[in-house]
């Protein structure tokens, strides 16, 4: 029977895992080993993927992948379903655990090994290593006082982060590594973690183990034990284990594996001082006796033979224990094989290795990869059997919430309802503080305007700095509210569910649900979203995801939308906002499908994703998240936005034409003279003066440097209905999207006597013939152009970094800008025919 045939709610034992390559190794490491009990929990709304429970955590697999896992029904389940029970394994214990227990009871062999020699006795370099979502970054933040991004889903950390702290006279350099399920590297961030471990040689490794999925988390621990590194285990989320009514004799388990274990609660900082004390103790230990994982008679024999084979070669320079090299060689690890290939007489080594592999397969009736994985899990099961009690309280919260948010009828409506509420709150709630800041900006502008002598400095401050920076800063509340929702989505565990329910749709465009997480992150900022694509195993899927992330409307584009939607479509603001975001997703989907069919034809990768339990985000985490974003936004105001506003003002203010100014002054003087001779009324005078001022501003801007740049662009942008000011704003927005607004703030200077909001100035903008510049068609085309053309230089730099190629970065620039132009053209031209 296959795992895909298991009905919702049924349990079974795994008998065999078929398939090959990275997928097989990955699900073996995640606990899909022979003899393990697995339960089908629920189907996604579109029937695929399926959520399974194994080793007390939840994971999603597609049907096409579940087919590769062979199972045998539990006797009681089979009886319920009227099946014959002959030859079914007994329900009281798994055959594997029994086998492993027997082996484990034989005792753990220990080997003496000299301790590390430390060059700097008071500085300790500590690497935090553990499974994804085990809480490494929470511990890192608390210990080092950093504010690194955390979230309740796998793959939040994709790069190493360094922080320092002092404790008891020691200086700790903490390195937070990306999460990894094992030391076999499939994704770039896992490869990175492994390279760091092997090459940087941290003084002590803190292996962060999630107490809520102990068995699976300890798999990485067994690999670290094999590697014989100085290690302390942080038993994180210990409160969750206690809440489930279990007891874990961690002192006894610590003795079994001869490694210190410290219970911690990362989010509250509990256990951190004790952890640091243990790190110091391990660091100072002159000798260590690392435990060896007993792999059983057959595997141990093969390891010994391979050790003998490699003994005389120069493998000691590899800085890996010989036993570890032999285990990896027998497992078929590509990197170790590559290293062996350069050794003299490597043919003989491979002949011997292959012979041992055949021997293992013949005797154990499974391939060496599975055999080693099974043995490691057997070792863990043996240890836990003696130290960990059964659950008493079963947390139903996750099951209950999942039955609602991933329900086949409610899943999608709830997801879109969440998005709608997010935009409604961003726009409506954000509108109140936005008006207050707008008022403050206007008051500041008028204060300077009315109290400073005329001159270029006054114009720079009022039109350039207040007009430009002030135009963008008003959107701070909207950004904060948007991030409140994104933080909630990330910290609660809903992010992984969104990926789960979207997998089938993503499958249709040649990607999988995992790609959906970077896409959602892209709503916040495209740069970390592009970095988050590192969690995707396949290069082709990663490249496609990277290239479509810029279509996810980032928070920098939000001020542009709010400005125009608020000015021209206030009644349907949320719907228009939702429509823009949805259009971005649609473009991303179509692009992904196009790229999958043309540029990246490789087969897509399987969907194996851990679904974390729901956790209530702490107020502190949410506030920290919002504060960090606000700080970054304000820093942008003082940096790139300010510089861009000044540059745009300079380009708009110069060159000055004295003759033209003199002509306008003469015209104004004539009007004043007519008024003083009572030839025109007061209102006529005001109108005529305003017309002259408008004509002077227009003539000046059109002849300024920025006007000339804009005019140069007009032939390309005119078919889209854009005038030169819109064109220049879009051009400057290539540096960062907020600069579109600051540029408009400078270019649409409006009434020179009174500081008005930019919305008012845009609404009043007309061509010389009196027709409005911003018609519904122009606004639609403009908003779509802003949505689609490339977001900013930082994003392009991130694409270059992650794809290791300028080619793809430039491709992204030309593709997105070309597409934006085409869509805006269609909107304007077709729309003009219809309206």
């Amino acid at each position: 029977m296959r795992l895909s045939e298991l009905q919702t709610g049924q349990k079974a034992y795994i008998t065999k895992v078929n398939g090959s390559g990275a997928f097989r190794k990955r699900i073996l490491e995640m606990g899909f080993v022979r003899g393990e009990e697995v339960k089908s929990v629920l189907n996604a709304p579109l029937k695929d993927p399926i959520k399974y429970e194994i080793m007390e955590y939840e994971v999603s697999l597609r049907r096409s992948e579940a087919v590769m896992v062979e199972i045998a029904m539990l006797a009681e389940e089979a009886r319920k379903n009227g099946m014959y029970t002959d030859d079914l394994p007994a329900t009281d214990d798994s055959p594997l655990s029994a086998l492993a227990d027997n082996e484990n009871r034989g005792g753990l062999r220990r080997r003496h090994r000299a301790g590390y020699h430390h060059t700097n006795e008071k500085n300790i370099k500590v690497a935090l290593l553990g499974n994804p979502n085990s809480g490494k970054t929470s511990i890192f933040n608390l210990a080092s006082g950093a504010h690194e991004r955390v979230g309740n889903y796998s793959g939040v950390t994709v790069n190493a982060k360094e922080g320092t702290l002092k404790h008891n006279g020691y200086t700790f350099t903490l390195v937070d590594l990306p999460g990894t399920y094992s030391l076999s590297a499939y994704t770039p961030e896992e490869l990175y973690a492994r390279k760091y471990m092997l090459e940087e040689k941290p003084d002590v490794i803190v292996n962060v183990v999630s107490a809520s999925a102990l068995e699976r988390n300890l798999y990485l621990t067994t690999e670290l034990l094999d590697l014989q590194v100085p290690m302390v285990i942080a038993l994180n989320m210990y409160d969750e284990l206690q809440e489930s009514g279990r007891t874990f004799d961690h002192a006894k388990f610590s003795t079994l594996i001869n490694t210190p274990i410290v219970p911690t609660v990362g989010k509250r900082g509990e256990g951190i001082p004790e952890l640091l004390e243990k790190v110091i103790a391990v660091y100072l230990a002159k000798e260590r006796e690392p435990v060896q994982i007993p792999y059983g008679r057959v595997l141990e024999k093969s390891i010994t033979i391979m050790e003998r084979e490699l003994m005389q070669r120069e493998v000691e320079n590899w800085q890996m224990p010989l036993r570890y090299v032999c285990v990896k060689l027998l497992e078929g690890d590509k990197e170790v094989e590559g290293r062996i290939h350069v050794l003299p007489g490597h043919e003989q080594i491979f002949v011997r290795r292959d012979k041992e592999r055949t021997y293992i397969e013949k005797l154990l009736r499974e391939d060496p990869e599975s055999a080693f994985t099974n043995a490691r899990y057997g070792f863990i099961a043996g240890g836990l059997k003696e130290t960990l009690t059964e659950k008493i309280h079963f947390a139903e919260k996750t099951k209950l919430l999942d039955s609602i948010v991933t329900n086949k009828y409610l899943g999608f409506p709830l997801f879109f309802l969440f998005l709608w509420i997010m935009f409604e709150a961003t726009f409506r709630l954000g509108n109140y503080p936005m008006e207050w800041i707008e008022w403050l900006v206007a008051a500041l502008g008028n204060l300077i305007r009315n109290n400073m002598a005329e001159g270029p400095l006054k114009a720079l401050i009022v039109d350039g700095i207040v007009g430009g920076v002030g135009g963008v800063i008003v959107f701070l509340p909207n950004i904060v509210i948007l991030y409140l929702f994104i933080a909630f989505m990330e910290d609660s565990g809903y992010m992984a569910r969104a990926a789960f329910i979207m997998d089938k749709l993503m499958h249709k465009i040649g990607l999988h649900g995992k790609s959906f997480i970077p896409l959602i992150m892209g709503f916040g900022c495209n740069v970390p979203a592009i970095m988050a694509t590192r969690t995707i195993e396949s290069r082709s899927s990663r490249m496609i995801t990277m290239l479509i992330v810029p279509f996810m409307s980032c928070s920098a584009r939000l001020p542009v939308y709010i400005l125009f939607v608020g000015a021209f479509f206030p009644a349907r603001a949320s719907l228009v906002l939702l429509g823009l975001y949805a259009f971005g997703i649609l473009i991303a989907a179509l692009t992904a499908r196009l790229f999958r069919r043309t540029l990246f034809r490789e087969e897509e990768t399987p969907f194996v994703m851990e679904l974390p339990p729901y956790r209530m985000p702490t107020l502190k985490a949410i506030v920290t998240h919002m504060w960090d974003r606000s700080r970054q936004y304000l820093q942008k105001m003082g940096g790139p936005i300010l510089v861009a506003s000044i540059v745009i003002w300079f380009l708009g203010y110069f060159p000055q034409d004295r003759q033209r100014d003199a002509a306008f002054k003469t015209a104004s003087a004539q009007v004043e003279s007519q008024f003083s001779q009572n030839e025109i009324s007061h209102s006529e005078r005001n109108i005529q003066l305003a017309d002259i001022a408008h004509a002077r501003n227009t003539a000046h801007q059109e002849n300024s440097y920025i006007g000339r740049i804009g005019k140069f662009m007009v032939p390309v942008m005119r078919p889209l209905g854009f005038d030169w000011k819109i064109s220049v704003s879009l051009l400057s927005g290539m540096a960062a999207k907020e600069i579109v607004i600051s540029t408009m703030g400078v270019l649409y200077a409006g009434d020179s006597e009174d500081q008005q909001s930019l919305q008012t100035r845009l609404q009043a903008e007309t061509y010389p013939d009196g027709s409005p510049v911003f018609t519904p068609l122009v606004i639609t085309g403009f908003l779509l152009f802003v949505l689609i053309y490339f977001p900013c230089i930082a994003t392009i730099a991130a694409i270059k970094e992650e794809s290791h190629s300028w080619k793809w970065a430039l491709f992204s620039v030309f593709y997105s800008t070309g597409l934006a132009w085409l869509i805006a053209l269609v909107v304007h031209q077709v729309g003009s025919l219809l309206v």
Partner: protein
Amino acid sequence: MDIQLFIVILIGLVTGIILLRQVWHFFTRKDNSYCGGCNMCELPKKDIPSNL
């Protein structure tokens, strides 16, 4: 010279220098501002297996 014009020219010069510095950094320095920054980002191409 008009004092306001003098200050504006100074501001222009400073802004120009900042802008040129940013352009220079864009092409010569890696931007770590979004990830916290350390020296371990660079995975040499040769170390990345072909399937990654």
